[in-house]
């Protein structure tokens, strides 16, 4: 899978083709949607005249390929158009929704890596021991549990019952409008403005969804780390290093780990991409005003402008991640230089 998705976009060229294809796919799929965006605008009491007017304004009366061409042209000029289902400019919506998701996903990936990698390494080193089985099961549970369900349970336990964390949403309403959106990442903005109350409040809200998402990716990362590590530990150079007189852990740290880093980068990048998927459901549960929920809502409302913009962004993220991993590859593995 890792190789699959990342291999997908080795060179920016093929990635762009992929992206174009993705857009086309989404566009025509979207036009198949049994939902009529016009109604969203005019309301269901409107008469046919009003309907036809808007239908024309949206250019929906033109042939599909033309619509697509027009859309792409507009997009290249940086114009995503209006999101019919929110009444806002798509760009405006995304500039809010996207940071929300990035913040969530980034924190989640931090948790995932911070726990996943060490656990994976230990599991490999103590292969077959109780510890190994324990981590494997813990990981697999995270791998196997529906994030949306974990979210609900988490809310009940930690918010409603114990009151340890903040509720749904990114902030308590009391704090709405209380800080400048410099970056859209609340935690960063709070630091920027040096406002501890907002910061801690944001933390209390993000910690639960982030942990739940992080758990899932931790599961994935630890599993991959384990098998990479096993592969390396079976290598001759490990023995050689031991013969030199290095201690076991020194060898793991200096040699085995250095060697899995390369593959690990790929896995982490991939895990990050998957977080976007997890976000769709988690954001619904936590009323998180993010990208996943935006995309879902747009999809259900048949709002192509919104959906296509999201697709484009996901695509761009993939390109970004791929190019990034390629770079890191070069840095980390001399053989690829």
């Amino acid at each position, binding site marked *: 899978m890792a190789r699959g998705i990342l291999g997908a976009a080795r060179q920016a060229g093929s990635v762009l083709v992929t992206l174009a294809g993705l857009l086309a796919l989404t566009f025509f799929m979207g036009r198949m949607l049994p939902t*009529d*965006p016009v109604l969203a605008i005019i*309301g269901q009491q409107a008469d046919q005249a009003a309907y036809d007017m808007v239908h024309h304004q949206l250019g929906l009366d033109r042939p599909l390929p033309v619509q697509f061409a027009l859309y792409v042209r507009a997009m290249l000029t940086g114009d995503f158009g209006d999101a019919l289902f929110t009444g806002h400019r798509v760009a405006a919506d995304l500039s809010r929704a996207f940071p929300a998701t990035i913040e969530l996903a980034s924190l989640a990936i931090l948790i995932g890596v911070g726990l996943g990698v060490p656990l994976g390494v230990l599991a490999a080193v103590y292969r077959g021991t109780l510890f190994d089985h324990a981590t494997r099961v813990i990981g697999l549970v995270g791998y196997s549990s529906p994030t949306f369900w974990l979210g609900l349970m988490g809310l009940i336990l930690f918010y409603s019952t114990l009151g340890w964390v903040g509720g*749904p*949403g990114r902030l308590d*309403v*009391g704090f709405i409008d209380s800080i400048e959106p410099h970056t859209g990442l609340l935690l960063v903005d709070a630091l920027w403005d040096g406002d501890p109350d907002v910061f801690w409040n944001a933390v209390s809200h993000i910690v639960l969804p982030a942990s739940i998402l992080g758990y899932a990716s931790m599961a994935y990362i630890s599993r991959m780390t384990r098998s990479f590590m096993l592969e390396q530990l079976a290598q001759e150079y490990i023995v050689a290093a031991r013969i030199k007189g290095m201690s076991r852990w020194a060898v793991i740290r200096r040699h085995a780990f250095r060697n899995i880093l390369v593959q690990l980068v790929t896995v982490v990048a991939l895990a990050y991409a998957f977080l976007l998927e997890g976000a769709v459901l988690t954001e619904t549960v936590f009323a998180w005003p993010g990208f996943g929920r935006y995309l879902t809502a747009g999809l259900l409302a048949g709002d192509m402008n919104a959906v296509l913009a999201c697709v484009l962004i996901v695509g761009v993220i993939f390109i970004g991640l791929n190019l990034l991993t390629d770079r890191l590859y070069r840095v980390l593995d001399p053989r690829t230089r």
Partner: protein
Amino acid sequence: MSPRLPLAILLLLLQAPASRAATPRDALVMAWNLDALITLDPAQIGEVNGNDIILGNVCTPLVNYDPQDISRIVPAAAESWSTSADGLTLTFKLRGDLKFPDGRAATAGDAAWSMQRAVLLGYGNSANLTQWGFTKDRIAEQIRATDDRTVVVTMDKPYPASLILSAAFASNVAVILDREAATKGAKVVDGKSDLGNAAFKTGPVCVGPYRVTRWDANDVVVLERNDGFFGQKPNMRRIIIRHVPESSAERLLLEKGDIDVARLLTTDDLKALEANKDVRIEQTVVQGMSYIAINTVDPILSNAKVREAFRYLIDYDGLARSILPYQGTPRASLIPEGAFGALDRAAGQPFKLDLDRAKQLLTEAGYPNGFTKKLILSANSISPNIAQHVASNAAKVGVTLELEQMADANLFTRGRNREFELQLVAWYAGYPDADANTFRHAVNPDKRPEAKLTMYPVWRTGWQDLSINEQAAAARMEPDPAKRAAMYREIQEFMMHNGPFVYIYQNIRPIAVRSAVKGFVISPFFVDYGSASK
């Protein structure tokens, strides 16, 4: 930022987390599902959220319903009105102290223009005017300002004043928008001005107690108080409406005191909240009917006996006890309770679960072994439960109902395009008068598909009865209230057994409020945010 950052972090580490205190004292915090909200332009609003936020809170209409008795019309932006002897001219006298948020005076010119604008834009609720004979090409003469405080309305028929006042001039189309701001922000789409629609979508400039200062899609709407407002000064400086699409989540927030008002709660969450002394629950019977629309173009469903059978498949009492509490009251008539001319509760709901009767009707209709039909419905609120309930009863008489839930947008599309066999939907009457639903649910001017009278739910079902059309037209013009009421009674009786709609319940709007919030005025057509205080 960089030099301050370490310092900031240090600061943060020293500081203890701020306790999640209760909501701000001078703000009313409301949680609601804002998914449907797509515009705040009063001329465009076609759904509940926008209507609730704008009407009376951001934009004060010329006249208003009396919160205590919605059949009475009281002055609002207009301090008085008069009807000419021939009943063709209606004259509004506006207040002298109408101000826009920035303090500039609002005139009758703005008012007239706002109403013309609604008609010219032609969005759904322009019907509030067009159905009374106001048209795009003549609107300029039909509604005009004669001086800064007088709006003169000329009608083509002498409609009963009470009727047209509540139907047209207490609604979102009869508000006072800032013409100047609109024309400044106007966008020109293929040579045609949008009359500021694009600009007002995210917040109209309007005469009213509050103004919209922020609307983040699917996140939050924030209203700020207009201190120049003519009416009594609202207690709350800010109104914060947060998008929380989960009943359970809203309940948690309410119980924790993170919000003051919860607007989206399920029956069972509300039931649970009854026990909570920090919370009170306000139930308002609104003018919305939930029903199964039957597409009579379908050969089987065109049979009145078949449609009648469906009415006996609904366990009105059972629902009333289990699923409907806080959400609705059983009602089988097309006119909601509380509207002028509505049947009383008993007469309005004569049916009860009777499988044998249903079976018999089906047999008479020639379908002793039943049939299979698809019922489409919204995935939201209690629709799925209602649908499953009906389906399980139908199964008992051999009728298989395949359910398909979908997003509302999708559901409406299918309806307008007649792409359904059975459809579970709701319809909100524009004004508390039998006339409202009669003209959408009974009167079908032209049932041909190509007529595309898509705004008539009855057209969507392909059902038509010319005599009903005449009766309705006559009732509309009938000056004598008693006679009028009688005519509507007939119509209701007839529709109840022959119409294409199986009405199930009249909607209740349940609002859970923290006890700390006092004097919150909630009426079927108007939730007065400003009336709340802490």
